[in-house]
C-alpha cells in the first residue's frame, strides 16, 4: 500500500498492478502524470483542451482494457505507448474532420499502434448502441436492467426498491425489459 501514497508518475509496472487491483490512486497518478504530454500534442496540432481530454481518455481506456484482459505486453515505455495511441487517435480524428494538413508536430517518440485503436473503435460502436438502446428503453426498465446486470443486485433487492409484491412479478418485469432492450439493440444493428 505504500506505493499508493507516492505522488508523481507511477512506474510502468506499478500502473499494470494498480489497474489489475482497481487502484484508484494509481489510475489518478497515471492520468495526471501523462495528461500534459497529450495535451501538448493535441493543442499544438490544431486541437483544444476538450479534444485532448477525449483522446487521452480513449487511450487510457484502451490501456485499461488491455491490462484487464491480460493481453497487454509492455514492449516499450508506457509513456511511449500512451503517446503513440493518442497520436494515432488524433490523426484519425483530424482526417475525419478534414483538418489534417499532412504533417503533425511531434514531441515524443512513437510506435505503430494501428490495430489496437481499430479494435477499440468496434467496441465503442457497440457501447454507443447499448447506451442508445438503454435510453430508449426508459424507466423503470433501464434501472432494473442496470441494477441487475451491471450492479449485480439481487432480484430481491430490486423487488424491494420498486415495490413489487413478489419476486416473480419482478422477474417477469425484468424479462420483458430485457426482451425489449434486445429488440432495441438489434434494431439499431440493422440500421
Amino acid at each position, binding site marked *: 500500500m505504500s506505493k499508493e501514497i507516492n505522488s508523481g508518475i507511477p512506474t510502468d509496472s506499478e500502473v499494470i498492478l494498480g489497474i489489475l487491483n482497481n487502484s*484508484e490512486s494509481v*489510475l*489518478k497518478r497515471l*492520468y*495526471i502524470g501523462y*495528461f*500534459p504530454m497529450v*495535451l*501538448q500534442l493535441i*493543442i*499544438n496540432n*490544431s486541437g483544444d*483542451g476538450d479534444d*485532448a*481530454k477525449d483522446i487521452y*481518455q480513449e487511450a*487510457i*481506456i484502451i490501456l*485499461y482494457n488491455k491490462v484487464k484482459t491480460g493481453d497487454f505486453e509492455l514492449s516499450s515505455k508506457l509513456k511511449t505507448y500512451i503517446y503513440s495511441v493518442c497520436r494515432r487517435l488524433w490523426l484519425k480524428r483530424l482526417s475525419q474532420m478534414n483538418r489534417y494538413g499532412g504533417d503533425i*508536430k511531434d514531441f515524443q517518440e512513437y510506435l505503430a499502434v494501428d490495430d489496437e485503436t481499430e479494435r477499440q473503435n468496434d*467496441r465503442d460502436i*457497440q*457501447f454507443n448502441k*447499448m*447506451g442508445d438502446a*438503454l435510453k430508449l428503453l426508459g424507466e423503470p426498465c433501464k434501472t432494473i*436492467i*442496470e441494477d441487475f*446486470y*451491471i*450492479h449485480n443486485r439481487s432480484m430481491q433487492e430490486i423487488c424491494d426498491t420498486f415495490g413489487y409484491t413478489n419476486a416473480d412479478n419482478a*422477474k*417477469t418485469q425484468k*424479462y420483458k425489459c*430485457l426482451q425489449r*432492450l*434486445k429488440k432495441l*439493440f438489434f434494431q439499431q444493428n440493422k440500421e
Partner: protein
Amino acid sequence: MSDNQLLELIERYLNGEMTKEERTRFEILRNENVEVNETVTEHKHFTSLIKQYGERLELEQRLNAIHDEIDVEALEDEYMIHPSFVVRLWRNHHSKISVAASIAIFAVLCTLFFTGYLTNRERNYMELSGKIKILENSTHQLSGKIKNLEPGRRNNINPGNFRGTGFAISSNGYIVTDYHVVGGADSVYVQSADGKSYRAKVIHSEVAPDIAVLEITDPEFKNLSPLPYTFKKTETDIGENVFTVGYPGDVFVLGPGYLTANSGFQNDSTSYQVSITANPGDSGAPLLDSKGNVIGIINGKETHIEGTGFARKSSYLLKAIDNIPADSLNKPLNMNSKNGLATLSRVQQIKKLQNYVFMVRVYGKGL
C-alpha cells in the same frame, strides 16, 4: 416451459447458482436442443455486453472525476507553443489566406490591365499620331485591294494606318511634321484641305526633337502661294494666346489655348507646355501665336492631365531645317520672312492657314 422460465434457468446456469443435478440436466437439454443452446450463447454475450458497457461508464466517470481536478487551462498555457501571431494565423487559415491572396492578385492584375498600366507603364506621355481603329483599317485595306483590282484606279485616296498633321515650310512642297508620325513608314501621303492627296517622301528626320521634313514628290502638286506665316526664332512668353490647327480626325480643327510653361514633359526645355485640347492626329500641327507666327510644332500630350499638350519650340524646328543635307534638297528651300497674318482676325487667319496645313497619312508603318 415458457421463455421467461427458460431465461431464469439460463441465468441461474450462467451464474453458477444451479445444483449439480440441475446443472447436469440443463447441460443435457442444451446438447439436445440447438435452440436452447443458441439462446444460452446469445444471452451470455448480450449480458456481458451490458456489463462491459456499465464498466465503461463507470471508468469514464472515474476518469472525468480525475480530469476535473486538473487545471487544463494553466497546462494549456504552459504547453502551447506560441508561434508568432502571423504564423498561427497562417497555420490555421492558410487555405483561406491563399484564396484571398489569389483573388487580390487577380483583381490587381485586372485593374492594371484595364487601366492600361501594364501596357503603358513607362510612358504617361502620349504621342498624338492617331491610330485608326483596326476594324476600320482592315475594311480600308479590303476596299483598297478591291480598287487595286480595277486597272487605272490606283493611287486613289486610301487612308493610311497612321495619321498626323503637317504644315508647309515653303511654298514649293516642303512640309514639316513629327518624326513619330512618319518614322518607319513605307510611303507617305499628304492630303490638302481640298481633299487632294499627294505622294511625299521623307527627306530628313531627327529622332530626338521628333521632327521630320517631307517633300511632296507628286507631279500633280502645284506650288502653293507664298506662306503667310513666319517662324519665330525667339522664345515666347508664358500666357501668350496661342492656337493650333490640325487634323485630329478627317476635318480641320482649331485648338485654341494658352502657352502655360516654358518647358515640356518632365521639364523638357526644348518644348512648350500649352493648355490645348490636343488629340491624336494633332501630332505635327503648327502652334501659332496670335500674330500668326509659328512658335512650335505639336508633338504630345500629358495622358493624365486633360487639356495639356506639348509643342517643340520653333527654334529647334528651324535648327532641324538647317540640318537638312544640301543634297537631299531637290528644290531650293526658301523660308518665308513676311508675315501676312498679323493683322487678320482669327477667322481670317485660319482660313488662310487651311491651305498650308496637311493631313499626313502613313502606310506600312511597322503595324
